[in-house]
């Protein structure tokens, strides 16, 4: 029963080595608070962009409400740790499940829509979630929910991120993942080949929402307080841009997109006015000159030039 092939083991080994190095640098203080915070944000953003990629990139469903799922996970897990003193892992899981359930409920009726209409519907639903939270006094309403324990560390984020990546990668490389990809390519043909398209669209939505919820939980426990303004459709746009910049349908792409965008955001933090102007220009230029994103729909380890490198070494 080998869960992992040799290539997977190599990747995991490299990741753990990378983690050890980064963690060491953090613990010893070489990486200061600012970059430590940003490393954590990168990890959380990777989880968000890869989970959104499952919905938008692999299944071709245009979802603009990802921040709504993140919000559910954030608030549910925060309430569980703060008010009920549940252990962190359990709170994260329940937050994720809560978001997944909502993803399923939302997915069922809206996935009859397609293209632009689905995009607007999901955007609207994300906003409804946010506005509803804003009106619930128990969770602090517009002022926010306070008192959240600072449970999120780099280690937590790293390993949850690794789990997310493997989950989604393995899903995508199975017959179920292929069913989702078929739906993206040609929904009518997919249905004609025996694929229950509704089931798989809802499944992609549910899994994507679930991981967004987990990311939300990690996000919430970085801060003492969270409020609804972190989960507007602007945030959803942010994650969408990470996915598109990296390449719809490429997990490596989503990782790259998250890293690049979080990096740009961090690097330009000293010039807040220019940050958004440069960001918006970059976006437009990217769509002009490389609309398929950095990686298109290819994975780094499958890319031709990487294979040639490896082949050359032999």
């Amino acid at each position, binding site marked *: 029963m080998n869960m992992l092939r040799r290539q997977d083991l190599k990747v995991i080994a490299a990741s753990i080595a990378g983690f050890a190095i980064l963690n060491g640098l953090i613990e010893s203080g070489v990486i200061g608070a600012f970059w430590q915070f940003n490393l954590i944000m990168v990890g959380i953003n990777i989880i968000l962009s890869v989970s959104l990629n499952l919905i938008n990139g692999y299944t071709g469903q245009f979802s603009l409400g990802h921040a709504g799922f993140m919000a559910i996970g954030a608030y549910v897990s925060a309430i569980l740790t703060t008010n009920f003193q549940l252990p962190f892992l359990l709170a994260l899981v329940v937050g994720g499940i809560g978001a997944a359930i909502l993803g399923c409920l939302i997915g069922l009726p809206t996935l009859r829509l397609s293209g632009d209409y689905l995009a607007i519907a999901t955007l609207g639903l994300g906003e409804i979630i946010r506005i509803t939270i804003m009106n619930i006094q128990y969770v602090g309403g517009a002022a926010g929910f306070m008192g959240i324990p600072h449970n999120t560390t780099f280690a937590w984020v790293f390993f949850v991120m690794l789990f997310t990546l493997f989950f989604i990668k393995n899903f995508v490389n199975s*017959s179920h993942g*292929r069913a989702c*990809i078929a739906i993206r390519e040609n929904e009518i043909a997919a249905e004609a080949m025996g694929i229950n398209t509704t089931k798989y669209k809802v499944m992609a939505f549910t899994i994507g929402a679930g991981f967004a919820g987990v990311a939300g939980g990690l996000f919430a426990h970085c801060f003492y307080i969270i409020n609804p303004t972190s989960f507007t459709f602007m945030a959803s746009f942010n994650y969408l841009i990470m996915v598109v910049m990296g390449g719809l349908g490429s997990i490596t792409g989503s990782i790259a997109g998250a890293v690049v965008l979080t990096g740009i955001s961090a690097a330009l933090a000293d010039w807040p006015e220019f940050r958004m102007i440069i960001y918006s220009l970059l976006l437009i230029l990217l769509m002009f000159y490389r609309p398929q994103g950095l990686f298109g729909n290819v994975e780094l380890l499958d890319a031709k030039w990487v294979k040639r490198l490896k082949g050359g070494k032999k």
Partner: protein
Amino acid sequence: MELLRAQGVSKLFGGLKAVADFDIYINKGELIGLIGPNGAGKTTAFNLLTGVYQATTGAIDFDGKSLLGLKPYQITQRGIARTFQNIRLFAELSVLDNVKIAYHSHVKYGVLESVFRLGRYFGEEAEIEKQAIELLKIFKLDEKKNEIAKNLPYGAQRRLEIARALAAKPKLLLLDEPAAGMNPQETKELMAMITWIRQEFGLTVLLIEHDMSLVMGICERIYVLEYGTIIAKGTPTEIKNDPDVIRAYLGGEAIS
């Protein structure tokens, strides 16, 4: 032994009667043709049989059970597979992936098994790969298995569509204008291939075609549609000489 029977089937789009009094039957193992002028409702009939459209009236029975109210994927799982008039391949995917996807309804491993790579995952994946490549060999596409489907020449794309439909392991295969755009040589090869796969896979075949050499050459029985109704049915010889058919195609002149 009767495999498919459509009785009194009609399809109305608002006031437009696309298909009416559609009555056909197909016995196991037969190779049947559905012909008619453009716009006669042939693809609509296919769409009705495969659940893309729901019949307004009538009954459709397959293998003894009714197909009414079923969704297309359910009908495919019952054993009917099809190709499309305008090719509907998974254009950005490889030839091999196109075929592998069609095996989906026969896959038994669940989502958790695929994510955690337990149980049946590796075994079934290997089996799918093996069967897909064997199928591609039959259609002479195995050399091109890693090519992106949209980059294939037109004739190869049409063959791929048929290969993909076969991967779904159907009992009844519906081919919608399989010879469209083919030259006479390619058409001859297609005719041989259709008869061969019918034999080899124990299939029953219903095909729509405009190319008369193909239809007359391999079909055992033919149904003729005009303006949504069947105006003639019978063997190729009977159809060739049927005055209604001649009128429908040529507007009154006899075929010599």
